[in-house]
């Protein structure tokens, strides 16, 4: 790994560690709530990074996977009495299956077709959640989702009803999800994903089957995103059609673009900073969102290729100097 790569990793790791420890060290419920949001967005942004940053497919369907995971897990718990620990995995699996079907159909045409279909899927999910009243209760949503119970050796069943405890659960999931994605993108499978993004025809001429790899990336991304949704709504204690809000899509995109598509730690770092940013700017209630916008514009001006792109650029310049 290069010095700049190590610097990016150090930056990402320290931001992550700060975010991990903050809610545990600070008193009150607010830091834990913010921590849950940060951990969830770290998974969501990494999921989009896997599909867009590494594989080169612009997906607007991430919010659909998130919401489908959320609704599936909420319905299984409320109507079928499943344990959340099984239901949120089922939510991820349902999201992954839907993602694979939609991707398989649209990728036969082109990656642009995939983007359009993914956008349609997100909009369709919103409509279904709002109008299929007999299943989803429409705009009223499913309120009062029960706190899950966790079997702790020595303590018996503990209700995960406080944000501090719930944060611990979400954090554990996020660490596992990020570790799995990290292993994937840094394997030769990840190398093939990048190859497909950089030059599809060349990859084919090397024996890489683009469809198979793209489906893998979308499946894994939808699985993790769906699972994140399944957990997240049990923190909110309600799931309603706003889970499909464009806000989530927009936030994930901002995180991936400012972090640098295809940069693992860059995107994780951006997810942490951008999740926390609106809250850090709370000192000025009126100008909060204006300042948020200014910070984003500044970030894009300073790092046109995201933090990861800036690092790659420096690496190239160093090679040029070394070889000239």
């Amino acid at each position, binding site marked *: 790994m290069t010095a700049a790569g190590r610097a990016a990793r150090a930056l990402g790791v320290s931001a992550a560690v700060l975010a991990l420890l903050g809610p545990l060290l600070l008193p009150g419920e607010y830091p834990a709530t913010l921590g849950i949001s940060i951990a969830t967005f770290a998974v969501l942004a990494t999921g989009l990074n896997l599909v867009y940053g590494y594989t080169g497919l612009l997906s607007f369907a991430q919010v659909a996977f998130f919401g489908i995971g959320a609704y599936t897990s909420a319905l299984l718990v409320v109507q079928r009495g499943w344990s959340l620990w099984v239901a949120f995995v089922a939510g991820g699996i349902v999201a992954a299956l839907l993602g694979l079907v939609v991707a398989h159909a649209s990728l036969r045409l082109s990656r642009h077709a995939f983007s359009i279909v993914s956008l349609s899927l997100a909009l369709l999910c919103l409509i279904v959640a709002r109008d299929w009243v007999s299943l989803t209760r429409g705009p009223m949503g499913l309120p009062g989702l029960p706190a899950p119970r966790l079997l702790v050796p020595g303590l018996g069943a503990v209700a995960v009803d406080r944000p501090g405890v719930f944060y611990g659960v979400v954090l554990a999931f996020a660490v596992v999800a990020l570790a799995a994605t990290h*292993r*994937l993108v840094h*394997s*030769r*499978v990840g*190398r*093939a994903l*990048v*190859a497909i993004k*950089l*030059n599809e*025809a*060349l*990859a*084919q*001429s*090397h*024996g*890489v*089957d*683009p469809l198979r790899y793209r489906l*893998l990336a979308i499946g894994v991304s939808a699985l993790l995103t769906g699972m994140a949704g399944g957990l997240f709504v049990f923190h909110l204690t309600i799931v309603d059609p706003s889970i499909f809000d464009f806000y989530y899509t927009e936030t994930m995109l901002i995180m991936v673009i400012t972090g640098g598509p295809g940069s693992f730690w860059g995107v994780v770092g951006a997810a942490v900073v951008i999740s926390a940013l609106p809250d850090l700017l709370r000192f000025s209630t009126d100008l909060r969102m204006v300042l948020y916008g200014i910070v984003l514009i500044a970030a894009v001006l300073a790092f046109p290729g995201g933090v990861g792109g800036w690092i*790659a650029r420096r*690496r*190239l310049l160093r*090679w*040029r100097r070394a*070889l000239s």
Partner: protein
Amino acid sequence: MTADPLLAVRGLTKTYYGLTAVDDLTFAVAAGTIVGLIGPNGSGKSTTIDCISGFQRPDVGRWFLRGTELTGRPAHAHARAGVARTFQTVRAYETLTLLDNLRLAVQEHDGVTWWQSLARSVSWRDAEAEATARAHELLGVVGLTNYAGAPAEILSYGQRKLLTIAASMMARPALVVLDEPVAGVNPTMIRRVEEVIRRVNAEGVTLLIVEHNVDFIMRLCGHVIVLDAGKKLAEGEPAEVRGDPRVLAAYLGRGRASREAARRD
């Protein structure tokens, strides 16, 4: 030509909106040879190799590698069956290192599964080590050893051509199809490309080369196929093909060809 050639192409035809690019083309490439495919612009050379490497679907025609039919199979299946190719427009994985560029060219050929590579199994480790050794060896052959860890975008045009040629040899394919390997390349680099081709051919790799540089083709190839307007115009040893009046006519135009022929006599 032997009874069972490495590559056999039969009746290949491809039309674009009524324009016939390749017209009932039949040819064969014998194992261990270097075959040149030449012809004026628009004679159907690129369409031919795009078809037999799976990048375009012809209207009619069948092709076989070592007797196995590849007709209609996708591009990646052609690569796995043993047909490697380069592109006329130089293609490289720009932001990846040269080593990764080369390792990518072989990773679908060594039989290591996704699970094995994710679990970092012994077979994965052995395969990566072997690919890395082969990559270093080929970088040495094309003279790019110093750049092994650099991203491909740092290379010049000629160096990129060498990289793509090296990549096409990574998986020890049965047949390598080179699309204009020396177009726009300076004379020093051309000699280096020539050396590389001779060297891999000596290792037993068969090559089919599309090129406009006729001298280059005549020096390297034991067998030359000339296309004109999608049809095979002539075929044979470089010397016979060179003197063929039909070939001269296709390249130079009829009037100049007859003057050339008169001058030779």
